Every structure is written in structure tokens, then in C-alpha cells.
């Protein structure tokens, strides 16, 4: 296949960016999307030109490192699929594909398609944990947890922190990301002690980092590669109100 690409190129955080056009020949349908970009970069490097900067690591959809906007949709057209797991068989010979970085005030562009997502780390830092030191944990079977509860907690806990939810949201809200951690820990007995403080602190940090508010339109859910649902945001709102109104 021959694929035409329009790619956002931006030399650095403070520089002005622009789209550039490229064509990649001999694309095999079995290639992953990132392998297609590797091929483009191989050509650029051989010609002594700067390759397109994009982030990726595990290339099996679990580390959350990769991610950019493909034809207006974070991670591209497949549902519940990170861009490293997207395959070229999804496209047709002669297609033109536009690639842009996540665009959000809280995620400054570092170069081309690479953004700084350290704001997510700082939200977790505000309370996305249980405060237990190593050493004093009771026997793991001491507190039974119903299977259904463990499964629901897992559903929330599998967020990979890629930032697609922020990129999809017109307000660049981080509610889906924050709510997944809040719900994961609120469901489990281990998370009860800090339940109130956690939700208040994490939401306050999320706002301070420059993420926007949630207007319940669900673009985040639609693009989430791990299928984190809007229920998480509903839980977050309930948890926050309960905490905020606590005497």
C-alpha cells in the first residue's frame, strides 16, 4: 500500500508547529501503525533528515507511552485500541492520514508528537494510593473481598494513563483518568481510610494542573483504549460531594 501522511512537526515546546506531508511506499497490511512510522523515519534518517519524534515503548497496548491523534481521533479508528496495536490493514491504499499530538494546556508539546504528561503523575501524587509502608501488611487473605467488587475495582484500575481521554475532550478534562483511580480505591476496603481526603486532594490537583471541567459528553469513554466507562466519573462526582459536604 501507499500511504500519505500529514504530520504535525514542532521543533520544541516554545517553537511554532506546522503540518508536513510525507508519503510512505510499500506499506504492508500486517504492519502496526507505529511500524509504518518507523519505516518513514528510516527513510528520513537515510536521507539525513530529522525523523518524526513520537513516543512508544511496550508496543502491546499496556504501558500507555504511545498516543497521538489519528484523523481527529486519539489512538485512531479502532475502539479500545492504542495506536501501537492499530494495524495498517485498517487503512486503504492511497489514504491520507493526519497525525497530531495530544492538544491540551496541561500537556505541553515537547517535540512533534511527543507531549509532557507529568501532570498525571502529580494527580496520583495528590492521593492516588493507600498510605501503607512496607513491613506491616496483614495476611493477604485476612480481608475477604467479594469477587464482584475485586472485578469492578480491576475495571477501573486498568487505566494506562495514556491521556487519550484528555485529548478527546473539548475541555481537556482529566476527569476520566482521575475518576478511575478514585473509584478503584473507593471500592476496596484498603482504600476506605483515606477515601475522603483522596478525592478532595486529587480533584484539587487536577484543577490546579490546568485540566478543564467535565461536561458529560463522553468523548473520553469513546476513545479510552482500556474501556474505562463514564460510570467512573459519576462515582467521582458522588465521592467528591460526599466528601465536600462532610461536616
Amino acid at each position: 500500500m501507499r500511504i500519505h501522511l500529514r504530520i504535525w512537526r514542532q521543533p520544541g515546546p516554545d517553537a511554532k508547529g506546522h503540518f508536513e506531508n510525507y508519503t510512505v511506499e510499500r506499506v504492508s497490511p500486517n504492519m502496526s501503525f507505529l511500524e509504518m512510522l518507523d519505516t518513514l523515519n528510516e527513510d528520513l534518517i537515510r536521507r539525513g533528515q530529522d525523523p518524526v519524534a513520537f513516543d512508544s515503548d511496550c508496543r502491546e497496548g499496556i504501558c500507555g507511552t504511545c498516543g497521538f491523534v489519528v484523523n481527529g481521533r486519539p489512538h485512531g479508528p479502532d475502539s479500545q485500541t492504542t495506536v501501537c496495536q492499530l494495524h495498517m490493514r485498517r487503512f486503504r491504499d492511497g489514504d491520507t492520514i493526519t497525525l497530531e499530538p495530544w492538544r491540551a494546556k496541561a500537556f505541553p508539546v515537547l517535540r512533534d508528537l511527543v507531549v509532557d504528561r507529568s501532570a498525571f503523575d502529580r494527580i496520583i501524587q495528590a492521593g492516588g494510593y493507600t498510605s501503607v509502608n512496607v513491613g506491616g501488611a496483614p495476611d493477604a487473605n485476612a480481608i475477604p473481598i467479594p469477587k464482584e467488587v475485586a472485578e469492578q475495582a480491576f475495571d477501573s484500575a486498568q487505566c494506562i494513563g495514556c491521556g487519550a481521554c484528555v485529548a478527546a475532550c473539548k475541555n481537556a478534562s482529566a476527569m476520566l483518568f482521575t475518576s478511575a483511580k478514585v473509584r478503584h480505591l473507593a471500592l476496596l476496603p484498603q482504600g476506605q481510610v483515606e477515601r475522603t481526603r483522596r478525592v478532595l486532594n486529587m480533584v484539587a490537583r487536577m484543577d490546579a494542573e490546568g485540566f478543564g471541567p467535565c461536561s458529560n459528553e463522553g468523548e473520553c469513554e469513546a476513545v479510552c483504549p482500556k474501556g474505562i466507562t463514564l460510570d467512573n466519573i459519576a462515582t467521582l462526582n458522588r465521592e467528591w460531594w460526599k466528601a465536600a459536604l462532610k461536616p
Partner: protein
Amino acid sequence: MRLDAKIPSGPLADKWDRHRFESKLVNPANRRRHTIIVVGTGLAGASAAASLGELGYNVLSFCIQDSPRRAHSIAAQGGINAAKNYQNDGDSIERLFYDTIKGGDYRAREANVYRLAQVSVNIIDQCVAQGVPFAREYGGQLDNRSFGGAQVSRTFYARGQTGQQLLLGAYQSLMRQVERKTVRIFPFREMLDLVVINGRARGIVCRNLVTGDIERYAADAVCLATGGYGTAYYLSTNAVGSNVTAAWRAHKRGAFFANPCFTQIHPTCIPVTGEDQSKLTLMSESLRNDGRVWVPKKPGDKRPPHEIPEDERDYYLERKYPSFGNLVPRDVASRNAKFVCDEGRGVGESGLAVYLDFRDAIERLGRDVIKARYGNLFDMYRKITDEDPYEVPMRIYPAIHYTMGGLWVDYNLMSTIPGLHVLGEANFSDHGANRLGASALMQGLADGYFIIPYTIAHYIASTPLEKVTTDHEAFAEAENNVRQRIDRLLSIKGSETPRSLHRRLGKLLWDYVGMSRNEAGLKKALEEIPKLREEFWQNVSVPGDANYVNKNLEYAGRVADYLEFAELLTIDALHRTESCGGHFREESQTPDGEALRDDERFSYVAAWEYNGVGQAPTLHEEPLVFEYVTPTQRSYK
């Protein structure tokens, strides 16, 4: 130099307790005055940094990714072992110890492995307290599954994403310490040199991967938890950013490298499809609990699997190993897959694959049960291959997955450079010549949560550490060394990409230092590697500059290190003329094709000392002494 593993005396079961009691402590009020650098934020690095922060040390935590949560431990699928005996099926610390020593083909230290089995039970407690959502039974108790090389169910899991959940637990503990200001994190940093002052590790030099700045950091001790070297083979199940650079640069500063030829080839990966492939994807070993491995009995049988009748199928693992069946250890499963493919009985387009079939399990248990157990793995398989494993058998083939070798460490996890500690996959210590499934997560977290906090305190408390700042000339020398190498890479302006050179190195290693090795092939590799290295330094292309995000420059530096490291890997494989675990020398096999050890000559750890690029390294032997188990020919029949 004589290698002293510093194994405590006394009975095996008491060694660790006794050692902890005899170790010196650092007063809580003094800990914040001691700086500890931890490089890497996988299970070992994140758990070490978090635990040391909890104790009150001043911890600096570095990673190459944009966040500590990305480290490749996150991709571990199947589970984590612990000798909890929750299933009442006969498990115990002794049994986990024995299985691990035997699984490693008697090439690991008894004392280290016993300690690993002991602390395994604490790991599960700690992780549950953090809120890790392990799989549960309906009664609310933790569920377990079986893994290769064991006849008990001791593996704890969280669907097919156990590594993710354990890493997020450690990462969250780490972020808690960042909030408490005991730990500072430095993402987007690549360690490019180790700083040794008066014979002790006292700091590192990093490149800031965003600004390109070369940065210096001083400390009282350094911990490397930078993972294995599987990506030297180009195609592996590792992340594309995983690399040997930090460990290799430490080796060049004096840390011995032990048993590099002990590489693990995982039997169940999605087969290679084409030249442009950048990585291989693992399908968890847990699938072998319910999937049956087979190939056609007739060579060259190209019929689709459903047209091959039952009596024309060879379930070769069940046939050859009736007591372990499909759950033989990884090295045995991988080699047998290679043998049947070499006989022309491989399946799929390339003939380099075997079937992993769930038909019988789906019939017996129903599709829903299989979906609940392996749903995400089946989805992943379908995304990559465009085939539905509920309907047709998976095609799998072995791939490089884990490396048992690594920097040599003593019982305290300290390398041959005093003050440099090495944790997790980056060290060599616990898995011998073959790692059992679900033991990597166990070792990473054991090292970080439960071992390094004690042993590093002893080092700090018992060592006179003069004050060192980054103005010291050793930092200037290291920085200069790093800058020169970067300038050299940028100035070549050749026509070959780092990736194409890496791919060629990988092919060379896979062909000659892969699943099955022989003298002629290894010698051939030793001729070819220096030529490829020469070509790299003549003709590599690294466009652009060093003062911004330049991923190709980072990659070129890593490939340059693989090209040096690959030679050591091959030299080690050539010198060890026995077969053991993942290291299979064709010259040394039993009449039925199993790995044949030579305990008379090779019951030792091979620790290599660096003498310069292209110079023969010096071998130091650490004899392995078995007081509690008797090495025997491993049998899974």
C-alpha cells in the same frame, strides 16, 4: 580478585534472619542526610525507591520514560508466585525454593533462592494492602493458578495484567513518597555513565532526553534496576526502549557481568510475520493451563487445523512429558517447538509456529469460562493476527523474553563496585540458567521492598563515606566521556540507520546465539560482531542535534552498546560447553535431546571483567555450593 558472595553462615532457613540481625542500621534521624540514586522504575526500581523513601533516605529516582509508571514490568501478564499454600496443595517455602533451584537447572545460589521464597509471602500481603485487585474466589479469598515447572497452584494474578497492577501499586507508593518529598523523580533521563570515586559508586551522569543537557548527580550509593538485555536480539518481547546501556556502562566502570549466555526464550509468542516487525508479543504462559500444544504428525502437512483428524495430531509435550504435560518449564517447551519445526512439522505460512489449541478447554469449560480467564489475551491475539482464537488454534513460536544473566551481585545485591547495587532483572542472582514463570515479578519486588532496605543500610552504616559533590573531577571525566560519545555519533553522518544495524545484529544473535548453540556458530558470530560494530562506527546516520528530543540519537547510543555487549554474550556462550536451562549447546545433550549439564566443570557463576572494547574479558569463577539440594538431571517426564 576473588569473588566473595558474602553468604551468611548457619542453616539455610536461618541465614536471612540472622543476616538482618547482624547488619548495621542507619539511625532514622540520619537517613535524610544520605542520598541514594535509584535508576529504573520497574518493579525492582519503583519498589526500592518507595521503600527507601519510606525509611527516610533522600532518594533520587530516574527513568528514561515520561513517567515512572511506564517501565516494562507493566507488560508482565501471567502472575506472581508466592509460597502461601492457600490452596492446601502441599506448597511451602521449601518447595518454592526447590522448584526454583531445579527450574534454574542448578545454576543459582541456594541462599539467595531460599530468601526469595521466604519473602515471597510478604510481597502478596504488601500488594494487597496497596489495593492491587488480584483475582478472587466467590468466597472473597485470593485465587491461584498453576505455572510451568510447578505441580502446585501458587501463582497470584490479576486477569492477564498482573505486572501492570503490581507496577501501579509500586508506582503509587513511589508517588506518595514524592508528595512527602523523600523521593524526587527524574523522568526522561538516561543514565550514560557511572561515577566511581575512591573505588566506590558515588553518582551518575545522565542525559536529559528533553533538553539534551548532560546532568550530574552525586549520592552515597547507587541502585541499578534497569532490566535485562533481551533487546540485543532486536526482536524480543521487551519494550522497544528497554536496553542494556546503564548496566553496560557500569560494567565498563568495573562491575562484573555474570552469566550473560543465560537467556530465556519464551515458548508462547505470536510468530514473526515480516521484516518490518519491531517487536514480538508474548501470549502468557498461563494459557498453557488450558491450551494444548500440537503439530501435525506428518511433515509438510499444510491442511488447516480443523481438517487434521485427532489421530494425525502430535501433542508432543503431553507425549514426551506425561507428568508435566503442557506445563513443562519454558526452556523445555521452547526447544521442543524448535525441534518439531526443524523436522518440517511447523505450521502457518513460515512453518515456524506450533498450535496452541483451546478447542478441548472450550468444550469442557464453555466459552465464558475461557473468556473470563484469558479474554484480554485472546483479544490481543486477534488484533495482531486478525484470527479468532476461539475458533482456530493460536499459532505460537518462541521468542527472546527474559535474561537470567546480569551484573554480578553478592548476597547483599552489591556488585563488584562497592556502593553499586543491582536489583531485579538487571542482576544475575536468583534464576540460574532458566527462570520459572511468574518468578520475575516475585524477584523484582523481593529485591526492592524486602532486601535492599536492609542491605543498603548496612553498607551506608559500615562505610566511611567522605562528602562528594558533583564538582569532583571524576564527574567531569564521566561527563566528558559522555559528551565525546554523543559528538562522535552525530559526526559520522553515514547512510545506515541504527535500526537496520540493530536488526542485523539481532538476526546474527538469534541464528548463532539463540535457542540452540554450537561451537562453529558461536565462533562465526564472534567474527561477525566486530565487523558490524566497525560498520556502525563508520556508517551510522544520526541526523539533527543533541539539544532536544532526538530519539534516534538515544537509540543509536543503545545500539552501540549492544554491539559491544553482544560479543561478551557470545564469549560466555562459547566458554560454557555444557547445556543448562536456556543455554543449549548441541555438543552437550542426553540421548533423548535434553540439556546435559556438566557439573564437574561448570558448577560456577561466570563473572566477566571488562578489559576494553574488542579485548578478551577476564573470567572469574564463583563456585556454586549445594548443601541442601543435590543437583540431578532435571526431569519433567
